């Protein structure tokens, strides 16, 4: 009932506004159309000026409002370039934005219709066209140059000594696999997945899997100042590993292995101090729509010193030991060839 009354009320308001508007227009026609039209025109011109001024004030206000709520400086070395490139692009586009908007509103106000004015017949000027074709083209070329340098840098091959960690998305959490002591991720097969005992489908015939460690709570431990290469995959639909603090992002696609690498600059503890926020935490957000729990697909990154990392790692039990302790694998002759396969799986692009 209340909904119905609301609708009736809204309709009533519309009718009243419409009738007032209509009456106003008829009154204007009666009074003297040309004169009232000129008055309206003047009013609108001033309203546009007011709009522009209020708009600029709004932008300033908005900046103030968001100050302190934005991201801290990039937590990865690769992201530092992002930050500076963003600033450059912001300055270039900012200048164009203020200039063109100002001109737009200024022209609207300055050349509003008056009795005395006649429009200036000015159909074209090739010189002007050439100027405002080449200037944006040069500006774009510069931005493309900066962009491609950074893009090729970010997408370059990871250094050989980079730590390797696998991040696998599933509805709706992140599974993190560390290669263990051997530094090699073993082979996995989606047909071997079992939610209770083998969440990533690790192939127990591959001895590289024996020491692999899986964190099911989505906790990604990284060493500060040490490059890390993430091997990214998905069990079901497309997800996306979003690391806003590191300015990094990569899709997790079922059936395809994607990678990204970066070097963390600040430990979580340092970040807590820098942001004056004791609750600060690096978060992994899923950035590709993946179903009803998409918004809750959260992981965390813990960046720590090598010593802290080693201490933490020493406490971890391999996934094999946790789930398959009694049954020893039928290993043996097979192992040799399995090993080559696993290398292929890791280096696959």
């Amino acid at each position, binding site marked *: 009932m*209340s909904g119905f009354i609301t609708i009736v009320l*809204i309709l009533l308001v519309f009718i009243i506004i419409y009738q007032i*508007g*209509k009456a*106003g*227009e008829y009154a204007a026609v009666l009074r003297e159309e040309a004169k009232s039209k000129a008055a309206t*025109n003047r009013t*609108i*011109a001033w*309203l546009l000026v007011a709009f522009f001024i209020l708009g600029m004030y*709004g932008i300033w206000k908005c900046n103030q*409002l*968001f100050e302190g*709520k934005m991201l801290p400086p990039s937590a990865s070395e690769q992201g530092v*370039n*992002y930050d500076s490139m*963003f600033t450059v*692009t912001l300055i270039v586009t900012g200048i*164009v934005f203020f200039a*063109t908007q100002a001109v*737009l509103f200024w*022209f*609207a106000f300055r*050349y509003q*219709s*008056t009795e005395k004015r006649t429009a200036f*017949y*000015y159909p074209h*000027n090739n010189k002007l066209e050439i100027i405002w074709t080449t200037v*944006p083209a040069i500006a774009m070329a510069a*931005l*493309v140059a900066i*962009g*491609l340098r*950074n*893009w*090729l840098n*970010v997408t370059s091959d990871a250094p050989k000594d980079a730590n390797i960690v696998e991040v696998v998305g599933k*509805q709706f959490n992140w599974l993190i696999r560390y290669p263990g002591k051997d530094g090699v991720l073993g082979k996995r097969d*989606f*047909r071997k*997945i079992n939610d209770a005992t083998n969440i990533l*489908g690790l192939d127990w015939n591959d001895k590289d899997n024996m020491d692999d460690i899986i964190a099911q709570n989505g906790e990604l431990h990284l060493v500060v100042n040490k490059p890390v290469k993430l091997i*990214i995959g998905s069990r*079901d639909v*497309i997800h996306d590993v979003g690391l806003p*603090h590191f300015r*990094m*992002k990569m899709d997790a*696609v*079922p*059936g395809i292995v*994607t990678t990204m690498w970066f070097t963390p600059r600040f430990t979580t503890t340092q970040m807590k101090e820098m942001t004056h926020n004791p609750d600060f935490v690096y*978060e992994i*957000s899923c950035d*590709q729509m993946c179903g*009803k729990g*998409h918004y809750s697909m*959260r992981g965390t990154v813990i960046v720590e010193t090598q010593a802290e990392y080693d201490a933490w790692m020493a406490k971890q039990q391999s996934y094999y030991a946790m789930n398959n302790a009694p049954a020893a694998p039928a290993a043996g002759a097979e192992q040799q060839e399995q090993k080559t396969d696993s290398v292929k799986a890791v280096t696959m*692009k």
Partner: protein
Amino acid sequence: MSTVIIDGPNVTQGIQTGTEHHGHEHHEQHFIWKYIFSQDHKVIGRQFLVTGIIWAIIGALFSVFFRLQLGFPDQTFPIMEKFLGDWAKGGKLSPEFYYGLVTMHGTILVFFVLTAGLSGTFANILIPLQVGARDMASPFMNMLSYWFFFAASIFMFVSLFVQTGPASGGWTTYPPLSALKEASLGSGVGMDLWLISMSLFVVSSLLGGLNYVSTVLNMRTKGMTMTRMPLTIWALFFTAVLGILSFPVLFSGFVLLIFDRNFGTSFYLSEIFIGGKALPHIGGSAILYQHLFWFLGHPEVYIIMLPGMGMASEVLSNHSRKPIFGYFAMIISLVGITVLAFLVWAHHMFVTGMSPFLGSIFVLLTLLIAVPSAVKVFNWLTTMWRGNIRFTVAMLFAIGFVSMFISGGLTGIFLGNSALDIHLHDTYFVVAHFHIVMGVSAFMGMFAGIYHWFPKMFGRFMNNTLGYIHFFITFAGAYLIFWPMHYEGIAGMPRRYYDYSAWESYKQFISMNGFISIVAIIVFFAQLLFVYNFFVSIWRGRKVTVQNPWGSPTLEWTTPIKPGHGNWEGEIPEVYRWPYDYKDDGNGNDFIPQTTPLRPGEESH
């Protein structure tokens, strides 16, 4: 220019009533043939417009619902339960239906409103009227185009009411999410209906597009060379070309998806474990769908933008009482945009793990498109320079269009540069960018067109006062809604989240989200005000008493105030000059109609 000029008298292509009766034929035609299954391009255009408006209300209402959830995640709104029933039990939107609403909002606004409702409306109404034709090349196909759209609408509407809800994987419906019933409720029947609906929509779009292109190429009146066409026609022409070349690719993507969903193929599926079991699919590529989708998806952005550009050009020129500046530069930039539109699709996929080299190519081509866009903006600004500007409602919306196009276009420079896109991809920065540039800006162009040509469509004016209110609330509201979203995006806030409260990195934006939601609701009601103005003015608006109320040189204003089927009584007028001759005609008028022969000694443009 060696263009083909069809010599009048033009034929009406076998319309049931003879051409010699035009002007009187409405006495003979039954209501059904005149208003429902009409083959008159003007009626079909209005059908597209009204259907588009109805869809726009539904699509916008959905955004109000999900904005309530986003702005006030810890509150309940019992009124939602009235509308949505079990999907909003106790006034709290369920996550499944939240995603359903988001998906439907996108699909409806992008395809049903800003494609069919925009180019369907104005290509139909303006092309024959402005090129001087009695109707489209094939009025029957034109009618089918609307009815295929209508059928698509029915399927989409029905999908809102199925038990598992409408499609809910986002308007892009990426597989495997959209391909597997186990992955999401919305990937059930709702997704099948979505695919059927969209396939019908593609058919509608092709029937319409082929008609628009052939009409522009073959049905122009005597003297109407290509370079004497108004920019609206140029823009609508390229819009149709874009649609014809890209929609079939989308269709092929849909066909493969339908096969994957129902017939066990593995085009998009590989190595998937879901619902407790491993699926047999191996070897497909989920990324393939994204290529097929965005091969339409990106040109689609320009399918949405170009009509607005054309209409804004026309309206800005007319109400500044000045010729459009750089007519040829405008055409060349339209060509540039059309060609480049096909070569930039993968910039939507920079973070899918694509080859970095391929990514570089797409960066280059994407930023290249900024050049013709910049040329257009500078030409619009110069068109206003030293004009004699009348602030009609249409003119205000055209100014708003330019303002929004600048704001939204500039943020595209961030997103097109892959090194920046890595961080900004799928954040609110993207949401802000495309809503401003192809949402609000395209709507502004559309409103400019509606207010400007309403007198031609219905023989009456829309109410100005309401129009001014509508404009200022929309203009201010759009900036208030989308400007703050840029900041959220720069801070990394992902799009398509149901609730941000659990996130340490994003929860500081909750109060800002509340503010955005409140403005969105106000803007929604301002649009209802427009809808009210539109429908009431059809019957109660101030009557048009002069043939050419805006003082425009173009051909549509040489028809009777309420043109019948066939548009002109008697011969179709001949054209002697370009459509922007805003100069003294020697009789106190500040424009010269295209139908006025050149004066002795006068040079053609």
